[in-house]
């Protein structure tokens, strides 16, 4: 049980040159599950390794329960980590892998035995306890790695992409298992992944990183519905959010022009939009906020857009349409029902949910905030 407070954390390899991590500030509450999400090389694993004490800190501080641990060696931080490769000791049995950390900490032999067996039973490893890692399946190894962290009952759990070596089916079941264990133990957890599904389903909050910096932090749906910039907008969601070049024609009665069609916007204040009048602007809309027919749009009058169908991906449960604007050369993807009759080559008029539009500053990529927007109001 612990609060992890990270303040202005930075990492420069070799003490100079580019920052691998720059100015990350984040407080993880007691028992909270925070996911660090980002593309490979964004610095998320480096942050985790700095928290673990495996990597020296270039600047900033990390505090656990109010005690700054910058200079505290890994072994004295009372943190357990699950590695992507599992990092099981190949020359030890499952039992010894689980007991290894406890032995070093001077736990009595009888208590070690009791704790190891309890954790092994909890994770369904009871009958494999005398096996070595090479005689276990991928999923079993993963559970041993998890057990090794749990058995120590540390203040903080760190996970470094623990599911990425598992096949798809096993990944889903292990993910649920992990969520269950974390809820049961209520241990503060920091979890690194590049998989947005893991991030959305597991975290109390997700923290999105890009190029060493923290871009946005918030509850999964909050981040999904109100991305802070175009990077987050494209990174979360599959297929990603459509980003279209448009032009703001009026701020007083907010209107923009997309592909020759005027759109009135709802929710944005004139003052927020004023700097962008007669300027290009980026319009973002998620594939699921595009509809085949206007009646499907739940709220407000729909906006209609002339498009040509370029490709159709029938996925069974749903259909993805790759659409081209009829005027300008811009593409967008729409997620529609499985019963669509649209085929490549057809032209149609697609409906947009005006309440689900996002605007971004083309210069900085930052979202232009809509004060009245309530991200949780919509169901998804």
């Amino acid at each position: 049980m612990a609060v992890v407070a990270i303040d202005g954390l930075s990492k420069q390899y070799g003490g100079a040159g580019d920052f691998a991590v720059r100015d990350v500030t984040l407080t993880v509450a007691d028992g909270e599950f925070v996911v660090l999400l980002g593309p490979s090389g964004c610095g998320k694993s480096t942050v985790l390794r700095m928290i673990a004490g495996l990597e020296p800190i270039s600047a900033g501080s990390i505090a656990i329960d109010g005690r700054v641990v910058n200079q505290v060696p890994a072994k004295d931080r009372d943190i357990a980590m699950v590695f992507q490769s599992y990092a099981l000791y190949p020359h030890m049995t499952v039992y010894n892998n689980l007991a290894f950390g406890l032995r070093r900490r001077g736990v009595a032999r009888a208590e070690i035995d009791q704790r190891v067996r309890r954790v092994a039973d909890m994770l369904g490893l009871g009958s494999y306890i005398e096996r070595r890692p090479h005689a276990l399946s991928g999923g079993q190894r993963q559970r041993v790695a998890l057990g090794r962290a749990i058995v120590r009952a540390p203040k903080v759990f760190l996970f470094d992409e623990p599911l990425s070596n598992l096949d798809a089916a096993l990944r889903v079941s292990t993910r649920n298992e992990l969520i269950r264990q974390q809820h049961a133990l209520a241990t503060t957890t920091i979890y690194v992944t590049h998989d947005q599904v893991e991030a959305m389903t597991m975290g109390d909050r997700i923290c999105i990183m890009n190029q060493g910096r923290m871009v946005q932090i918030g509850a999964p749906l909050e981040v999904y519905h109100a991305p802070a910039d175009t990077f987050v907008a494209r990174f979360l969601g599959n297929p990603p959010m459509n980003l279209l070049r448009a032009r703001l024609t009026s701020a007083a009665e907010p209107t923009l022009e997309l592909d020759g069609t005027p759109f009135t916007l709802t929710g944005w204040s004139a003052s927020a939009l004023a700097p962008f009048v007669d300027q290009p602007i980026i319009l973002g809309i998620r594939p699921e906020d595009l509809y085949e027919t206007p009646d499907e749009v739940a709220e407000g009058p729909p906006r209609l857009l002339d498009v040509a169908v370029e490709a159709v991906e029938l996925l069974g449960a749903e259909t993805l349409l790759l659409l081209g604007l009829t005027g300008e050369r811009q593409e967008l993807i729409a997620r529609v029902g499985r019963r669509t009759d649209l085929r490549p080559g057809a032209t149609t008029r697609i409906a947009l949910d005006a309440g689900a539009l996002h605007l971004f500053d083309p210069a900085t990529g930052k979202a232009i905030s809509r004060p009245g927007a309530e991200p949780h109001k919509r169901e998804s």
Partner: protein
Amino acid sequence: MGLWLTYLRRTPLLIFLLGYTVLTGGPFVWVASMSLRTTAEIFADPYALPTRPHWGKFAEAWMGSNYSTYFRNSTIVVASAVALVTVIGAMTAHCLARYQFRTRRLLRFVILAGLVLPPQMLILSLFQIMLDYHLYDTLPGLALVYVATQLAMTVYLLEGFFAQIPQDLFDAARMDGYSDFEIFWRITLPIGVPAIFTTVVLNFVTLWNEFLYAVVLMTDDDERTLPLGIMHFMGSHQLDVGMLATGLMIAIIPIVLIYALFSETMIRGMSAGAIR
């Protein structure tokens, strides 16, 4: 038909292996058979098999010709040198494979340079050093020289193997609370056993047969190692071929035993990458 073709394809390989076996095994069998025959019998017919094996020759060589002393000296020097070079080599290899420090590349270069320097080049200066430190003509002195000569090869082999052990294992052990030395002791060493075995066997065989350093640095008959003892046989007994063969067999037996017992482990170590 297909089976015949398979055999036909294998024929050249079989011929090659057969030739190789005869070439390497032949002299060994010859010496083995001579070791059980008297010199007179050998001169009468050099290639004949022993009709009435003289097992007593082994006891004679052992007792009568100081062989027990040579054997004891070799065992002391080689065993202590191998033990020492394994410990030092493994620690060095672990550090070179695992830690980034300023002089790492230089250090590795200096150590591995030992692989390319011919012993003949070093032997004069080594002779002088041994004299200066009163190590000349002593068993510990020779053992130390052996440690120095085998260190480069040992570090080279072990570093290659240790570097393949995933870094995550060491990080995990650090998180589990272990110190750097404990990690070496409890992670690197047990996982590196096949590679360590390989270096132990290679070093043992090389040093057991070592002649050049021994002949320069050892003169007292009571301090001689086996290879010197065998040479001694040639001089003092006016080429007693029969006894020479018996002496050779005594010297060879430990090596044959080591190969027989550990060749599997050694091959596993040499074709490393055994970590899963």
